[in-house]
């Protein structure tokens, strides 16, 4: 990680865009600071006490000048806003085909799991050039996933998924930090992101013992928690079947509200259906689902279940 300690490495597709906005901002800063400095120094020298400089007819106010220095900063501000907003929009719009890695943050570590089932702690291996989306959740307090070389940062919240995406553009090892103060060992909640050549990455994925893909692990959890008892084909209590649900529209009702709303069965919906099952009930079913809190089903396991439900959704729609 040896580099000149005055500018960070650019290792993602965002980095150049963000740096461009930053350098433009620094340029504006340098210009105005220099302008003010030169003006002040000139005046200080020229009009210091005792000089014979001409001092008559000094203006006390001037609408034109005031409008000038209202107008110019206004134009620059709107320009800077528009430019940075466009880049920001891209930072928060992951491509649909991005490779999905799960992040579970807790005091004081990042736990990551790849769709192929590989798990890591405080380290993230990613293939070069492939857009990667992180689906993140915290088990306790607010953390923040931050990779300076990618110019990417997103708070990781408890109870809610947030996401972050980037496309690595350079092979190497980069710092990974928790950027949101999260308690005693916040300082050491850090790690490394390693960008690898795709071939190396495939080799790395295949190495070590793997318990099968995330969806496969999710299926095992599905059986372990007897989810199939209600949601499976041989259901003894009526519960909505889960095949083909993921990504579709689900009719839900809320108690006291006679209308039925259609909502998308996304990660949030499945997460909340496990954690707060009384909130959104599929139309036509009784609210029988028990609540699973973190002690019964960790956030990491819940992500595996989601992967499983997503996989059976995909099978269904592909048939």
């Amino acid at each position: 990680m040896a580099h000149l300690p005055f500018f960070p490495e650019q290792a993602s597709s965002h980095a150049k865009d963000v740096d461009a906005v930053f350098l433009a901002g620094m340029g504006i800063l340098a210009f105005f600071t220099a302008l003010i400095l030169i003006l002040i120094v000139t005046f200080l020298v020229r009009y210091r006490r005792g000089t014979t400089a001409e001092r008559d007819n000094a203006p006390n106010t001037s609408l034109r000048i005031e409008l000038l220095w209202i107008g110019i900063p206004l134009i620059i501000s709107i320009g800077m806003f528009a430019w940075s907003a466009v880049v920001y929009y891209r930072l928060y719009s992951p491509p649909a085909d991005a490779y999905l890695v799960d992040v579970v943050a807790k005091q004081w570590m990042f736990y990551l799991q790849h769709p192929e089932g590989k798990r890591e702690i405080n380290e993230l291996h990613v293939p070069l050039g492939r857009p990667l989306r992180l689906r993140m959740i915290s088990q306790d307090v607010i953390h923040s996933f931050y990779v300076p070389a990618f110019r990417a940062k997103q708070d990781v919240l408890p109870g809610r998924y947030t996401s972050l995406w980037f496309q690595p553009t350079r092979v190497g090892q980069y710092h990974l930090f928790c950027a949101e103060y999260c308690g005693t060992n916040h300082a050491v909640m850090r790690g490394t992101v390693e960008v690898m050549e795709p071939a190396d990455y495939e080799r790395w994925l295949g190495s070590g013992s793997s318990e099968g893909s995330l969806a496969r692990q999710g299926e095992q959890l599905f059986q372990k928690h007897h989810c199939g008892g209600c949601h499976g084909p041989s259901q003894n209590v009526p519960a909505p079947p889960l095949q083909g649900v993921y990504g579709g529209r689900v009719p839900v009702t809320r108690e006291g509200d006679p209308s039925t709303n259609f909502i998308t069965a996304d990660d949030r919906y499945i997460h909340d259906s496990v954690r707060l099952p009384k909130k959104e009930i599929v139309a036509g079913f009784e609210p029988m689902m028990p609540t699973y809190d973190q002690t019964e089903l960790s956030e990491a396991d819940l992500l595996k279940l989601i992967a499983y439900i997503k996989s059976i959704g995909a099978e269904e729609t592909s048939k």
Partner: protein
Amino acid sequence: MSTTHELLQEPPLAEHFDDLEQQHLSAQLGMWIFLATEALFFGGLFCAYTVYRRMHWIEFVVASRELNVAAGAINTAVLLTSSLTMALAVRAAKLRERRWLLIYLAITIVFGAVFLGIKAFEWSEDYERGLVPGSLFTFPFRPEFAGFAEIFFLLYFLMTGLHAIHLIIGIALVATVAGFCARHQYVAQGENLVEMTGLYWHFIDVIWVFLYPLLYLIDVHR
């Protein structure tokens, strides 16, 4: 009371003011700014309430049903009437009718105390039913909603509690002013004091006018 006597009773002008008008204006403006602060003080709670009512709508409805709507309604009537008597007290002060002023202030105090009494009764009822948030909280009516109902009750106790603290201060203020007016012959300063206290009292009333429908009547006005 003779004119001379009244002149002798001119209110004390604090030495840093030029005249009584300036003193009066300052007190009035100060009270309005204080009320603006108070509005934002309650505003934080109203904001939290609004957010959670949206997030946990049905739980709030269910929790709200456990409140004593009748007691709340009586209290609303009591407090609104007290505002009327307070307004009459201000009028009496302006007309320099000292006897009526004292009578209206006394009635206002009584109404304030009645409100607090009914509120205390409600709270003790809530307490017995285990609705006070914390380790004793139980929500047997719909156990599956207990968590969110607890948020409702926390907000309920914070909002009504804060309101009650304000009302206690209000009663103390009215009592002090009444005592002042009873001890002294009527003086113009009494008029100021009554007016300031009136502003504060009406503010407490207005807060309750928002609290009552928001907390008690969720189920009714949707």
